[in-house]
């Protein structure tokens, strides 16, 4: 028992401590702390924009990704699913900067502005949705045929089978996709600044342009913290919504 707690602490606590140490070191060395304090209102605005960007894109990625992944497993959609998969894969394979540039260049053709929050959202969404689609599809496909046959034989409707059996059992794999997707979103979000999408990218790119490590660090460090925050939140969320019967147990986790 105590050794379990100990390994848990080492696994979770140690990286956190190291990260905090690195952050303090960076802030001290480059004067990022002073810059942040001097520009506190702007810091809050940029952080808020950044969080908004990440949250909204995640909502779209999850809802649309899970829906697409589910649709691909439905009877009668076998022909279309490779197409869907190919499209989202291509979106992800384009370098993130490229997607942003594409959104900037292409959206005007369908009557939308290429500048601002909306094109950023669309671009980041396109770049990040693939893991959710892929894992939802794989997760549902991985539910064993015995389980599905039992469900059908017991008189469950297709809908009941999807919501009570297939999705809950696919959830650990789907959550894996959502985590990967979140990492992509968080990593791409700073680029939104390039097409006027706001967020902490402003400080990062300004810092780079002025070769001022202080400004850059003042933007980059919160971005990293936000990434860690989301990962942490997802882990808690996963514990809450994934049934204990299909969660990877502690022993398995420790072996990773």
């Amino acid at each position: 028992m105590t050794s379990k707690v100990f390994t848990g602490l080492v696994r979770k606590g140690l990286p956190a401590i190291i990260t905090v140490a690195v952050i303090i070191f960076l802030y001290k060395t480059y004067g990022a702390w002073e810059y942040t304090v001097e520009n506190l209102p702007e810091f809050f605005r940029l952080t808020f924009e950044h969080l908004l960007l990440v949250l909204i894109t995640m909502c779209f990625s999850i809802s649309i990704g899970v829906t697409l992944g589910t649709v691909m497993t439905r009877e009668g959609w076998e022909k279309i699913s490779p197409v869907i998969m190919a499209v989202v894969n291509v979106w992800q394979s384009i370098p993130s900067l490229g997607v942003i540039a594409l959104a900037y260049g292409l959206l005007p053709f369908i009557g939308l502005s290429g500048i601002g929050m909306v094109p950023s959202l669309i671009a980041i969404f396109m770049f990040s949705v693939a893991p959710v689609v892929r894992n939802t599809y794989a997760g549902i496909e991985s539910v064993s045929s015995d389980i599905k046959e039992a469900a059908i034989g017991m008189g469950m409707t297709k809908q009941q089978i999807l919501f009570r059996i297939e999705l809950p059992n696919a959830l650990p794999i789907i959550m894996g996709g959502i985590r990967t997707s979140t990492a992509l979103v968080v990593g791409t979000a700073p680029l939104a600044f390039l097409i006027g999408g706001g967020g902490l990218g402003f400080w990062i790119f300004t810092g780079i342009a002025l070769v001022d490590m202080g400004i850059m660090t003042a933007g980059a460090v919160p971005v990293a913290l936000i990434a860690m925050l989301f990962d942490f939140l997802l882990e808690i969320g996963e514990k809450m919504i994934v049934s204990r019967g299909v969660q990877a147990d502690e022993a398995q986790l420790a072996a990773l």
Partner: protein
Amino acid sequence: MGTMLKLDKVTKIYPGTDFRAVDELSFELEEGEICILVGPSGCGKTTAMKMINRLHSITSGKIYIDGQDVSSMDTIQLRRRIGYVIQNVGLFPNMTIAENISVIPNLLKWDKRKINERVHSLLEIVNLSAEEYKDRYPRELSGGQQQRIGVARGMAGDPPIMLMDEPFGAIDPTNRDHLQNEFLKIQEKVKKTIVFVTHDIDEAIKMGDKICLLRDGKLIQFASPEEMLTYPKNDFVRDFVGGDRTIKRLNLFSISKVKRDDPPLIKASAGLEEARGTLSEYGTDYLVVVDENGRLAGLAANEDLQGKGETVADVVQRTNAYLDGTASLKEALSEIFTHDTGFLIVVDGDNKVSGWLDTNDIKKALKD
């Protein structure tokens, strides 16, 4: 007891194939009977079974449950009325044991209290403590325990009919034997009409009230296990049930049906003189010694009775040459051969001597 299940010239041709996976299969089952579909792999057992709950469509012919044509019923409603147990169990990993068992009662919209009671009573029936197991998840159970939950789940909606596709097929022989016995005990209590698929003729003989032997989709023989062993219809049946038919039939008789009621008894309190007289009357090698209440105390051989002592109690020797009346003739035979008494003592639940039998009795039982 009416006809519960009736198949009338049921035929299945899978789309895209041109052979009959099931070919004009007809049989009837009475309420409370277990019918075993048995035959070589690929003979159509699973197909025949899955047409009953319409997991497969029927190409031609009719299936009636309790007089009602299944093709006229709503598939979802039909399936909720039929218990379904499959070889690989298929418990839902995301649900607890209690939740797994309550799936059908929930679909049938039973109220919470009734479902809860049902879960408890079913766990009791399959011999798993409710307190200990109801909140566990399937992966926390052994294979045998999971299979028992599978059976409990199949019975949960109190269905008049149950379909079981090789339910014990994936379980090792020792545990399988145990589960079969347990299942027969459960069936004794619940008396469901059951269609049970297996490829194992021994299981069929043990479990079935009726055996339905198929080959290439066709019904070869539909009969009780005893009839099939005694009067196999043709060479195929004879081969399928195996050269050891006679030995297998031994499984079908319990010794209480075959035993004789006049064992060579002597009370433990009887004097040796009297005992010697009794022994020569019976002409056996041993006397069965009982206490005042008729319970088995042991055996006494001729030499023992010549020895010192006043009563039989002084010379009695303990013995293992006895069996409960519910044991099968096969067990009886092997017991007779392991002891040199030449006969076997039959006792009831209280260890009271109720009869005896020897190899001649067994031979006679197999003849008629």
